[in-house]
């Protein structure tokens, strides 16, 4: 028992150098600055938050809605400013809190735009609030806002490492499925369109290459964390990670995610490595933090017990979420119940086509809904393959037509009643195996409650 206790103390209470955390703060700030800037410059603030008239909110977060024009832009500008403050470590705590709130708020607006790396950024920024990444080489120290520290408690770095490790590990575990390993799906399809990839493109024409990539990436994801924490394999594993992420960046339109991972994993390197980076930066006189008083290393710093329980809860949840899919029956890739927030990256190739109908009360006449009238093409595309969004959209339609009177072209007036019936004809193709019916097209979707229960109206996937 003492061995384990010692080990836990080593991982949590031990004093370790602050350098890796400082570099992490700076790199994270820079990356977030540029990815936010890229987002704005691509016009996505307008496309994703001003153009849509309906937003697919998360269950329990229906109160989140975008700000009116032009305040979404203001929010993004604020985000840029907080990034700069984080880079320089000025008013660090306030800015990480602000960054976390704004970023998470934006991501909660519409699940159409859900990406695993946005979720990752939300989590990391939450963790950053809790740790003193500004206690060295920062303007907070320079101005004496906080005390300078050369060492911190080990947990303050290890929670970041653990979070990164969980991402890789679960990304790897999620690849351990029949399609990925035994059919090399979806890579086998994707690689065939990549035969003009520089140098090795021709190899993508072999099925073997897709299998090789599938297996290697599964093994990579599962073991990379363990290889990164071991100093003997650190350089080589970082190199492998670097090559891996650069390749995915070139091959797939996944935005900044590869760069976020390349930069984040730097935190696994030792103090000396980070010390050199900091000296390199300070050589150019960007930040000089020598004058302030150094806080005495206080080995016995008490860790707030609220914080302790929060972190235990946080990581327990992180362990639970990726595995919650096991609570649902049916094929995960088909139903997508428990799919999000689980580090399932580039796992499925899915496309769908949906037609919604609103029914006349007490009659068997129905009217076809033009999805384009209510959704953007991107929203329609995402909704057509994801059952929770299908349900939300059906509820939205029902609400839109509730208690309304429609005048037909022949002058007939139709009263829609309190809860108009909505049905949908949806076909979905998974892994290019041919489109097939997705949900029970007779089911009145407006009567079904949202929630985490099993959606039994999704049809079984037949192989």
């Amino acid at each position, binding site marked *: 028992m003492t061995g384990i206790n010692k080990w836990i103390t080593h991982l949590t209470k031990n004093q370790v150098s602050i350098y890796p955390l400082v570099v992490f703060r700076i790199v994270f700030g820079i990356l977030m600055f540029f990815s936010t800037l890229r987002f704005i410059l*691509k016009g996505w603030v307008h496309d994703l938050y001003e153009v849509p008239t309906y937003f697919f909110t998360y269950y329990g977060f229906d109160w989140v809605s975008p700000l009116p024009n032009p305040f979404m832009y203001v929010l993004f500008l604020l985000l840029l400013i907080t990034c700069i403050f984080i880079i320089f470590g000025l008013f660090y705590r306030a800015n990480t809190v602000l960054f976390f709130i704004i970023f998470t708020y934006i991501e909660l607006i519409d699940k159409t735009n859900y990406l695993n790396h946005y979720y990752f950024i939300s989590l990391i920024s939450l963790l950053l609030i809790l740790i003193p990444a500004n206690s060295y080489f920062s303007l907070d120290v320079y101005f004496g806002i906080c005390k300078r520290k050369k060492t911190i408690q080990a947990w303050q770095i290890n929670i970041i490492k653990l979070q990164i490790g969980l991402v890789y590990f679960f990304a790897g575990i999620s690849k351990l499925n029949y399609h990925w390993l035994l059919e090399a799906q979806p890579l086998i*399809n994707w690689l065939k369109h990549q035969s003009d990839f520089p140098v090795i493109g021709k190899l993508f024409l072999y099925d073997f290459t897709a299998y090789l990539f599938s297996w290697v990436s599964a093994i990579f994801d599962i073991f990379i964390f363990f290889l990164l924490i071991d100093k003997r394999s650190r350089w080589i594993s970082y190199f492998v990670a670097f090559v891996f992420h650069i390749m995915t960046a070139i091959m797939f*339109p996944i935005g900044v995610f590869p760069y976020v991972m390349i930069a984040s994993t730097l935190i696994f390197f030792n103090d000396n490595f980070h010390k050199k980076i900091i000296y390199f930066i300070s050589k150019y006189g960007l930040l000089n933090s020598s004058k302030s008083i150094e806080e005495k290393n206080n080995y016995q710093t008490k860790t707030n017990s609220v914080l302790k329980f929060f972190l235990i809860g946080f990581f327990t949840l992180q362990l639970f979420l990726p595995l919650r899919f096991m609570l649902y029956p049916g094929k995960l890739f088909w139903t997508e119940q428990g799919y999000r927030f689980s580090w399932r990256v580039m796992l499925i190739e899915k496309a769908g086509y949906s037609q919604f109908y609103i029914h*006349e009360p007490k009659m068997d006449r129905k009217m076809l809904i033009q999805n384009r009238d209510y959704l953007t093409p991107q929203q329609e595309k995402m909704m057509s393959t994801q059952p929770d969004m299908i349900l939300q959209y059906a509820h939205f339609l029902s609400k839109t037509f509730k208690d309304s009177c429609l005048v037909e072209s*022949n002058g007939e007036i139709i009263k829609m009643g309190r809860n108009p019936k909505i049905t949908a004809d949806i076909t979905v193709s998974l892994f290019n195996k*041919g489109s097939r019916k997705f949900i029970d097209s007779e089911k009145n979707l407006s009567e079904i409650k949202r929630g985490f229960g099993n959606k039994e109206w999704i049809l079984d996937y037949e192989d």
Partner: protein
Amino acid sequence: MNTRFLKFLYIFSALLIIQSCKKSGCTDPNALNYDIDAQKDDNGCLYEDYDKLSLLTNLADNYIIPSLDAYKSKIITLNIHVDSFIENPNISNLTLLRTNWEEALLNWQDIGFLDFGPSEYILLRKQTNTFPIDTTELNNFITLADWNLDYASSYDSKGLQALDYLLFKPGHLESELITYFQNNTNAKNYLKAVAEDLNQNINYVTNQWVTYREDFINDFEVTQSNFSTNSQGSSISNIINALCLHYEFYVRRGKVGLPLGVFNGFSQLELPELVECYYSGKSTQNLVRSINSLRKYVTGSSYLNNDNGLGLDDYMDFVNAEQSTQQLSTVIDNQFLTILDEVNNINGPLSEEIINNKSQITQTYQELQQLVPYIKVDMTSALGVLITYQDNDGD
């Protein structure tokens, strides 16, 4: 590595494999190194590099450019006949003009789904074949002798469908129509303006294609930005997005669904006045033509002599796209044939058949509808194309 070297490599390794172990090898008959004796697949199948350059070159040189040129020459002839009709409005000139208009419109059906690149830039489809026509606006233009066909608001008063109205004015016998034009200089001028506008638009497109062709076959935009071929802005993505959009919204919906009343609320009351060529009653033949040309285009056939070349169907086969255990390309082609069977059962103008023979048109619509998921879901996902008119990251 070039293909020859790879071929050498596979022959060499195939020999080795055959010598060492006779049962394992490539079991896919579509592969280059298909091993007829192999009983167990070793995942070593080697496929011909799908030659996108040849596909795009074939589409550009054997379908797109010849079809644009053919349409253009019809429009030129149309203009000549407009001129002679204006000069001398009589029965024989009217008949000639009508025939030439009819042919130009049929040729339009061959290029309607090419709305990308230069055509998309000038909104060729909207400028050429918007229907129904706003006859009130059109008549106002003529009465007041005041029009500007460049305004987007004039798009539903011009184009081939405006000629449908002008040359087949409801309630006018041929002789009355001739009197109408004889006594109405404004109408003559408007007729000429519409024909010239058509000419100007297709001229722009064909001129642009002279230089655009290179960009198109070399996938210019994509090679500029990244290696994700078939991503947004790539030629494959452009042709497929244009194809799906045209088919779903302008053929299935515009030509049949809307007039049939499928989109008309709960009553689903027929709206026959929404058909293409409402005044001349030529809707059915144009529907047939557009389905035939779509099929021709998907199979990569030559516009002029129907010789089969590399098309989207071959690309689907290359990636082994399937739909209910059949090849997707076969399923799509069969669906085209089913649609043609249905359409060929329609014996009169759609505006009349929708009322008199509703079950046949409904049947036709259902078959048209059935093709939508095949091309919009199965084909696009097999070819790695995103059907989205928006730019975004994925994960």
